């Protein structure tokens, strides 16, 4: 029994490592359910434990992955162990080969450890490319050995960094399990034609949540402290003049207005389908929204154009903004200047852009002014967050407003939730 409990505790710890908020209660429940119910097959045990441990659809996916990896038969465990040992041996050999290949002038290149790992994991074809390049450059070795070493090292660094980014992108795509959930985690620029219907439905659901939270009418529970005499007296008449129920004034909440500013310039082309669908969904679910598109200029979207997706796509293409350069500063200055005012204290300005713009200082100034005028400025960025540190424009803009990634639909949903709460 104690072995059994130990195993369950280990499984709970594994789930915790995977980000599931598993506490003692869940482990105790799992233990109770396994001892109380006579479950003979693995599938039933899996379903029973899933009901206890996973408390959302997303958690169910993580749970299934952990369960399948943790509870395996002895034969399968042996097979996995053998495979791992073999892979480890192969990797050790590759590392050794790589050490020899990453030498210049007979000395190690002194590359970062993670880049050395990239070289080890690179395909044979890519490694061959580097080898050929080394071969070509060999003639320069005798002219200036030091310059040659530095040059080769920098070429290696650049090539390996590019490979590292490509591998990261590939691993994001390979984490797919449940096709429906996988869509949540796939880069929005990688959506295929067949994904569009389901992605569109998810975008609508996320937009609805975002709008519901932004414009939620909170009914005052309790009171704001001020007695409403007129209503109290009128209510008192119902009970023979005794002021039995006191009525208090309630603060009125103004519904927030949403202003969408969407980048449709050349750099955003790969995200355009997502961006247009997001705009359309937001305008459908939010009664009080205004939408602006920008690239080199800014233009307000005619609400009639948003009635159906094909018409909207045609409208955007015909607008002359699609696929051109980006002048975010100009667009924001235009919004700030508009009369009657577009931005105000009860407005939330939602910017959807990758931050790539001409004249960054001017754009930053205009964003500061927009932040002053609007009640709230939120920025959704379709560039994956892991690439943010390499882009100065993102760092500048993120320091001026609340920026959240939306490179996948899951990120979009999470960002929306976080931004609303923050």
């Amino acid at each position, binding site marked *: 029994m104690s072995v059994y409990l130990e195993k369950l505790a280990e499984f709970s710890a594994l789930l915790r490592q995977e980000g599931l*908020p598993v*506490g003692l*209660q869940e482990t105790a*429940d799992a233990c*109770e*359910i396994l001892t*109380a*119910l*006579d*479950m003979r097959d693995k*599938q*039933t045990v899996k*379903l*029973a434990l*899933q*009901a*206890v441990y*996973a*408390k*959302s*659809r997303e*958690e*169910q996916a993580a749970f299934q992955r952990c369960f399948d990896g943790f509870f395996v038969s002895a034969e399968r465990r042996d097979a996995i162990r053998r495979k791992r040992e073999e892979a480890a041996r192969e990797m050790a050999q590759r590392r050794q080969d790589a050490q020899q290949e990453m030498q210049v002038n007979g000395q190690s290149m002194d590359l970062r450890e993670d880049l050395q790992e990239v070289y080890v994991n690179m395909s044979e074809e890519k490694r061959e490319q580097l080898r050929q390049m080394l071969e070509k450059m060999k003639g320069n070795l005798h002219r200036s050995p030091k310059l040659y070493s530095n040059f080769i090292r920098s070429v290696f660094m650049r090539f390996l960094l590019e490979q590292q980014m490509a591998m990261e992108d590939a691993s994001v795509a390979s984490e797919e399990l449940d096709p429906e959930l996988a869509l949540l985690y796939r880069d929005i620029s990688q959506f295929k034609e067949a994904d*569009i*219907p389901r992605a*569109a*439905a998810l975008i609508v*659901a996320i937009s*609805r*949540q975002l709008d*519901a*939270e932004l414009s*939620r*009418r*909170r*009914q005052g*529970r309790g009171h704001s402290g001020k007695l409403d005499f007129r209503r109290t007296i009128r209510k008192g008449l119902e*009970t*023979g003049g*005794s002021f*039995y*129920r006191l009525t208090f004034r309630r603060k009125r909440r103004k519904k927030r207005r949403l202003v969408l500013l969407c980048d449709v310039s050349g750099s955003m082309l790969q995200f355009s389908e997502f961006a247009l669908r997001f705009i359309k969904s937001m305008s459908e679910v939010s009664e009080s929204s205004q939408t602006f598109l920008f690239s080199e200029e800014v233009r307000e979207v005619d609400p009639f154009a948003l009635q159906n997706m094909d018409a909207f796509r045609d409208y955007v293409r015909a607008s002359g903004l699609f696929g051109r350069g980006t002048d975010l500063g100009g667009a924001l200055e235009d919004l700030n200047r508009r009369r009657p005012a577009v931005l105000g204290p009860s407005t939330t300005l939602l910017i959807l852009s990758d931050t790539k713009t001409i004249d960054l200082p001017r754009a930053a100034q205009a964003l500061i002014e927009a932040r002053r005028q609007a009640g709230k400025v939120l920025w959704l960025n379709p560039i994956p967050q892991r690439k943010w540190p390499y882009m100065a424009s993102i760092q500048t803009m993120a320091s001026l407003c609340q920026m959240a990634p939306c490179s996948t639909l899951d990120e979009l949903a999470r960002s929306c*939730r976080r931004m609303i709460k923050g």
Partner: protein
Amino acid sequence: MDIAALQNKLDEAKYICGGEVATTLLVALQLGRPLLIEGPAGVGKTEIAKVMASALDREMVRLQCYEGLDESKALYEWNYQKQLLSIQVQMNSRDAGELTKSLFSDDYLLERPLLKAIRSEKPVVLLIDEIDKSDEEFEAFLLELLSEMQVTIPEAGAIRAKSIPFVILTSNRTRPLGEALRRRCAYLYLQYPDIPRETAIIRAKRPNVNEHLAVQVAQAIHGLRESESILKKPSIAETLDWVSALEALGASDLTPEAAGQTLGFVLKSSEDLEAAREVLGHPGHTCGHGHGEGHSHCGACGQDK
């Protein structure tokens, strides 16, 4: 009760579901935990509570959530009129302190669904429907009930449950629910049934319908749910309504004409109807949806020709 017994009871109540539903229900029952069921509208979340009430032979108490729902509608309210009358009648005959005390007793308490569920002598099935429609404050208010099986009334103190109700919460995921609420519940995600299961549901609920028509309707419904142009996806109840309508017309085959005449039972907006007719309306298709000669795949029913 074991899984097979529960599955039998669900079958008897004509609730056709897979092993996941039965196992999760049994786990929640065994642990005495509330069960949170999420999924799109019309997949049978509310129906589970009704079926469980009948399977467990318990009364069902339902609390329908909406924005602005508070404890006076969900838990209790004092019967002000009765209290006032009592004051006037007994003012001169009773001691003031005693009278005041008596005003906050059971006699003046109006039970709302939550209080009714926990004060019931026999355990009930408590359905808290569409919890995502209520405010976050109400969600927080529910925590005491869900974890301790008790509620606190300021004038009367904590009231512990006389019998432990089987609590089922449903949500359409229109807003994310708090972690605290989720942690207190067992969890089940319901999806639309696949074609064989939907056919089985049609056969169970409408036994007079012929097998061929049941399969055709299930395929067509599946196609409509998959179609991007249909905004409001048809629910299982609407599938059954459609079958009933086709039965009433005496249709034994889902022809474009029969589908056209009865589509209003499945789709409830002019845009959706128009989009569906476009898919179903082309002549010359063996599955009844028609796409002309060149097409190899039916968008409505998902059938390959």
